[in-house]
């Protein structure tokens, strides 16, 4: 049946294509059309300039800088692949920061995904005062990240912090969170999890878009709440899940403020190894050690790395993302 439909439609499609082709070649020939095109270009010109000056230009510049040694003040000196060779072969901090960032991603992304979907499901219930809960849950996402970092540094303070005091009531000696290699990462996870409202609100929008017919049909089939969640809610939510996971992944590699603030506290020189996130390493190399060439190379490695991961997630999406309007 499908092939029959195809046979019928192809000639029409071809005809349309021909018409389109004829039109497109003459499309910008008439003075009116040409004027429209020029005006349109003028309107998007700010973006084109921004793209050239703030994205493409800097990207090309830093590709070049990655092959140089440059300490901001002097002139860059061409050293070929030396930065890249050093990064991949003898720089222990590079591999450590990759490891730390990936470890964080493995802990944070599943936790964030599960808890924010759970929060979204709770926010989707039709009870009185739900607006107040939604506002409260979203509020931490509006707070400056410096404020979030400071509050958690105080709550996780080893001697007077709220969490360790509460733990001492039940006889547990709390750790020195941000200085303890075993717990530092969890402190950072806590700061990030405080913002789960931002992602919960997006899942909530997805939940509210699911047609009630699907749940009615599941009711008829005798499905219970858990079955409904895994067989209706989750598949219908998967496009948003997919989008959110990519956003979170990109976010993970940008984690900076919390680790920076936490590790510079108390006159402590530099972060402990377990908190040396990738972006912090780029910052230290570029702005503290003033090795701009080296930092450029690190930025390019990060760009390519994120590109590969994003392509991987995109490629895997047909296996687990369900699009309602997609033709199978």
């Amino acid at each position: 049946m499908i092939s029959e439909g195809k046979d019928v439609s192809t000639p029409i499609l071809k005809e349309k294509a021909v018409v389109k082709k004829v039109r497109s070649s003459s499309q910008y020939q008439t003075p009116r059309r040409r004027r429209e095109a020029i005006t349109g270009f003028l309107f998007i010109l700010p973006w084109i300039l921004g793209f050239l000056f703030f994205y493409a230009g800097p990207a090309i510049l830093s590709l070049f800088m990655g092959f140089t040694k440059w300490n901001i003040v002097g002139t860059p000196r061409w050293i070929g692949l030396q930065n890249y060779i050093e990064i991949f072969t003898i720089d222990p901090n590079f591999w450590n920061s990759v490891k730390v960032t990936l470890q964080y991603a493995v802990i944070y992304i599943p936790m964030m995904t599960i808890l924010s979907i759970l929060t979204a499901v709770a926010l989707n219930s039709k009870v009185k005062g739900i607006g107040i809960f939604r506002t409260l849950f979203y509020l931490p996402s509006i707070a400056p990240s410096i404020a979030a970092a400071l509050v958690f540094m105080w709550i996780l303070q080893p001697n007077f912090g709220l969490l360790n005091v509460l733990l001492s009531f039940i006889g547990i000696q709390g750790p020195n969170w941000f200085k303890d290699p075993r717990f530092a990462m969890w402190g950072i996870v806590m700061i990030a999890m405080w913002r789960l409202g931002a992602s919960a609100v997006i899942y909530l929008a997805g939940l509210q878009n699911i047609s009630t017919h699907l749940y009615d049909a599941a009711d008829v089939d005798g499905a219970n709440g858990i079955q409904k969640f895994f067989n209706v809610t989750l598949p219908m939510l998967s496009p948003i899940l997919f989008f959110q996971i990519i956003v979170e992944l990109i976010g993970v590699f940008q984690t900076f403020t919390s680790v920076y603030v936490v590790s510079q506290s108390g006159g402590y020189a530099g972060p402990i190894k377990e908190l040396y996130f990738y972006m912090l390493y780029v910052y230290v190399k570029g702005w503290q050690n003033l090795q701009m060439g080296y930092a450029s190379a690190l930025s390019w490695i990060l760009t390519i790395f994120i590109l590969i991961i994003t392509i991987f997630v995109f490629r895997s999406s047909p296996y687990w993302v369900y699009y309602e309007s997609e033709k199978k």
Partner: protein
Amino acid sequence: MTKYAHKNKGKPLFSRRFKSNLKAYLVLGIIAIFLGVPFYWMIATALRSPDAVLKLPPSWIPNPITFENFPKVFQEIPFARFIGNSFYLVFWNVIGQIFSTTCIAYGFSRFRFPGRKALFLVLLMTLMIPNTITLVPQFIMFARMGLINSYLPLILPAFTGSPYLIFLMRQYMMTIPLELDEAATLDGANRFQILVHVIMPLMVPALVLVTVFTFVEVWNDFLRPLVFLNDPSKFTVSIGLAFFQGTRFTAWEMLMAGSIMAMLPPAILFLITQKRLMGGIAMTAVKG
């Protein structure tokens, strides 16, 4: 399974609805405690005297309550100046984003020109590029132009439009019927007049979104001001607080008072516009 059991017994003690509501409140309550306690502790600490902060065990309710920490923040660090600097940056960024995203969205949604689709695709691709990746190269570029320690690196990009906000504005503009443009053309309006008199008034909800998103992002930004500004008198609230924390790291009551004040402007803006904001977030999430 208990669904029909109640019917036979007549009126149940608690209705099914009541039970499911109770369950919802329980889950919501637990989440609210976890997300709310940091806020509470921030406020409770800011209202304590320095000795009460380092007393064990701490009381849940500060006693006595004191407001002296708030003015003290202004005495210890040039906090008023930081607030002024932040507002200055927010102002120019909002102006820049409103101007640029309106024009660019108009160009993409109302004009035919060669390569429009390809350019829009490029725009969507830049959405995927993390901002921090362009940080090193942008710094190098601005350093070569001698603009480090000025506000220009923090303002200029706004006048070229953020890809996310352009996308949002374009999606919104696409919902405005073309018939309105055509009617205005018949009345003799030119393209610019159509934008100002026909499109812009209908774009107010989207412009509110652009304003709030820009405000919150610029106000909360940490890395860019940290990188581009060296002079403490030019610092914003965010890096000003971090600077303060680096020097007076034990004054928790003042750090919390400062954090509350840093949080207030975006929080107030959010509370005023939250209905529209939530709708906007939902729109970009579901359609994007």
